[in-house]
């Protein structure tokens, strides 16, 4: 009950926040990029054919490794650091509220937000390629296929949520949005470099995508190793975040 109330409070805090609209618009970049790429391919190489499943597969790649990744880091940093930048903790903590529940409500809102944004990306692809299907025609444009990919994208969102926990810690530790965003740029560069390498299976942020797309099987690394690394990174992130926040003196 308390947690539900805290989650409601977290949503209340987002009223008039520009980042809500900004994040929703930003995740539409993936569908637009795919749409433009598809149009370009159609006019330059009309002999090449692709299906809705191919589009969603590319959408998952862009989403999990590049665009959505950076947006999710930004919203994570915003959610966790705003209490410091707006100096609200000294108003809220003496109410009194449990620091753990407060943090858990933030993680849950972050999770819901990521799921919504994944849903928007999925819907964006479906609508834009529905238009493409009407104008040009697209193989395999079926709602059942789209729903299969919705589940995959939401699973991808869950993986992304757990591997974002170190960014929550960085946001608390640095008390701002700058450090996590810079680190995310580095991580995304790593994603870009490793997305076609076997080593990508051991890099937590590409490892999740490899598992989703069953690419780990084609690398030299066992899936359990990839999963262990992902879970380890997530655990370290969560443990550090909770430990730091619970022990921290508010200066």
């Amino acid at each position, binding site marked *: 009950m*308390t947690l539900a*109330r*805290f989650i*409601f*409070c977290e949503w*209340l*805090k987002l*009223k*008039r*926040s520009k980042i809500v609209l900004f994040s929703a618009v930003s995740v539409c970049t993936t569908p637009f990029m795919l749409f433009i790429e598809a149009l370009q391919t159609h006019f330059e190489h009309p002999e090449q054919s692709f299906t809705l499943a191919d589009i969603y597969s590319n959408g998952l790649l862009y989403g999990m490794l590049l665009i959505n990744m950076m947006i999710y880091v930004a919203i994570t940093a915003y959610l966790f650091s*705003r209490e410091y930048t*707006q*100096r*609200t*903790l*000294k*108003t*809220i*903590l*003496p*109410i*009194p*509220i449990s620091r753990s529940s407060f943090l858990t409500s933030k993680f849950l809102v972050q999770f819901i937000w990521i799921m919504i944004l994944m849903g928007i990306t999925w819907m964006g692809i479906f609508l834009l390629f529905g238009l493409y299907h009407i104008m040009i025609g697209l193989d395999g444009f079926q709602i059942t296929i789209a729903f299969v990919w919705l589940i995959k994208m939401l699973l991808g969102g869950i993986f992304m949520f757990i591997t974002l926990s170190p960014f929550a810690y960085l946001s608390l530790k640095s008390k701002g949005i700058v450090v996590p965003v810079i680190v995310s740029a580095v991580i995304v560069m790593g994603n870009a470099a490793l997305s076609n390498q076997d080593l990508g299976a051991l890099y937590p942020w590409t490892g999740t995508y490899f598992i989703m797309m069953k690419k780990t099987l084609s690398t030299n690394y066992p899936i359990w190793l990839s999963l262990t690394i992902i879970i380890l990174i997530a655990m370290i992130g969560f443990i550090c975040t909770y430990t730091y926040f619970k*022990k921290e*003196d*508010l*200066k």
Partner: protein
Amino acid sequence: MTNLIETYQLSKAYPHTTVVDRVNLHIPQGKIYGLLGRNGAGKTTLMKILLQLVKPTSGHFNLFNETPKKEHYRRIGSLIESPGFYDNLTAYENLHLLQCYQGNQDNQKIYEALKTVNLHHETKKVFSDYSLGMKQRLGIAAAIFHQPQLLILDEPTNGLDPIGISQIRSLLVKLCHENKMTILISSHILSEIEHIADIIGIIHHGRLIEEIPIDELKQKQRCYLSFDVNNPQHALEFLLQYEPTLHYRLEAQSFKLYGCKQRSDVYNRLLIENHIAVHQLRIEKEDLENYFSDLIGGNDIG
């Protein structure tokens, strides 16, 4: 009288500095306790410890005569330094949010608190558009809107204009007398709290160096003779030859002699007979500001 807050050897130390040093604070129920100290004296840290925002290094404290429990904090209202609220929300929404965290729903209480601090008309403006004074008033509204029994206010009049300061002072006195609230208020300006506080605690370099009822403090105000002369240094040296044990304070155009008001005629005659013109001789009472600065030994900038 029951103490609502009692601290026992409460300390907070960081690797290179001790911010709060073995403080024994006693705040009686139904009184206004003024915590006075210069900037960096440890007032805010002490208040943060009481609100469990900072963990003490050693010592402990009691709230409402018991070891602090979660329930006690529901009966406390607080404002620490500048108020912290969500920039994108209005005053009402910010207080509504705090009420949600408390698990309450009472719009009337929010309205009354906003009316008390004269912010009830600001229905559209978000916190980021507030002036410094408005922000401070919202901070006070947030501290009192759930009608606490104990208020902990850290420099609550920061950023307020003189009329605002006077209104907040009156409000605090009213809350204490009519609603039987106990108030711990800090300030670095004595004049801000000497008119409302029942007890003053003076903190310096983290140590509580005096805890004294205001009536007793006023009795300590010393009388002195103030001589306005052309060359105060020379006049004072002359009197010191005559009476070397004099307690004095030398100023630019005058000097003060303490503890000898019955001998004003003697010193006046001595100076005049030795051709030192006395332009003015007054018997005055030392103000509390001087007492305070003497106590903390401070002429350095705080």
